[in-house]
């Protein structure tokens, strides 16, 4: 009886150990961490884009791959950035949709867009800042503040040449502006003499995206 118990215990221990070793080997081969991230429901997030999203793909599981050792990093710790470099505000504004003056942006009825993330990178020509904001109704906006690499004219032409969709030229507070009402993303670019600002959204309308850009330009001019 004792022999049987000892044999069973040993067999179980061997099974668990080998299972663990196989898992470890596979994990190191695929170079992924143990962190597993469930992607948000594609059908829900892209409902407004009218894309064909089969429900079977709603549960794609992404694994957080470990960085390859030779990858050059351009991310900058925000604590190393001098005060005053980040011009995009922590709280952005959007005019309330129900406001009668939504399109003209003259209404004082506004809601706050809370900043949910801010990242800085340096590719050698000045800081690039990327911030994300969320509105009360769940719309997400990404805002970029980047240096102008070449001349303003060349950069503006670059914007016009980049998109396949029609690029509409306009002005926000007298600043050269170009926007794209794309099928899947709405983008507004406006430029000062030395910096470019971009407001983009995957789930807001172009009117809302332009409205946020207008408020951003207003807030920047107050600085």
């Amino acid at each position, binding site marked *: 009886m004792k022999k049987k118990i000892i044999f069973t215990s040993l067999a179980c221990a061997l099974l668990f150990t080998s299972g663990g070793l196989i898992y470890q080997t596979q994990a190191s081969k695929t170079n992924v961490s143990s962190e597993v*991230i469930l*992607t948000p429901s*594609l059908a829900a997030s892209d409902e407004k884009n009218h*894309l064909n999203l089969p429900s079977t793909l709603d549960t794609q599981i*992404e694994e957080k791959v470990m960085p390859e050792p030779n990858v050059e990093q351009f991310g900058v710790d925000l604590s190393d950035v001098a005060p005053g470099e980040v011009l995009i505000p922590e709280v952005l504004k959007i005019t309330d949709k129900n406001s009668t003056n939504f399109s003209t942006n003259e209404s004082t009825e506004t809601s706050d867009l809370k900043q949910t993330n801010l990242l800085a990178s340096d*590719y050698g020509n000045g800081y690039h800042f990327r911030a994300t904001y969320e509105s009360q109704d769940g719309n997400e906006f990404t805002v970029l503040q980047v*240096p102008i690499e070449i001349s303003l004219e060349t950069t503006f032409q*670059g914007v016009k*040449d980049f998109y396949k969709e029609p690029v509409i030229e306009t002005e926000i507070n007298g600043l050269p502006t170009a926007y794209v009402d794309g099928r899947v993303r709405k983008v507004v670019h406006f430029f000062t003499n030395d910096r470019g600002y*971009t407001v983009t959204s995957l789930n807001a309308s172009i009117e809302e995206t332009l409205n946020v850009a207008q408020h951003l330009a207003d807030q920047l001019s107050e600085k």
Partner: protein
Amino acid sequence: MMKKKIGLTLSTVMLGSLLMLAGMAYANGFSGWPTLSKGSSGGYVSGLQASLYAMGQQPSVGAVDGIFGTGTETGLINFQTNTGLVADGIAGSDTWSEFHDWATFETYTLWYLDTSYSSTYWTSFALTNNETKLTYRVSYKGSNTSVYSGTVY
């Protein structure tokens, strides 16, 4: 007179070529990318794999290694299905055009893909070396740490 005409024609052709080259120097997204399918390899395949990461296809693609294998094909078919394209596993003009629809201009030499399909990764492309070299970079969304980078061409 004939010599002048030839000279003028040659000058026009040379100027045209120079203008064409200069015109290609800015960030132009996925314009002109070649058709890729299972068995293809190289920088453009890495660029495709990096783009598929931004589309939530990391589980299918696996490593960004420049080899168009079964994983990349599956990831591409998923992307094509999700976006209403013909799901044939071949990255042709329609596929590149769809990727371009998701791309955003950042600077004259930099553009990126950041979509709701992936909660983990975004991918950027940069022209370097006097705009003769295109590189890709796959980064975490939350922390700006890059996990893959390499050369498309």
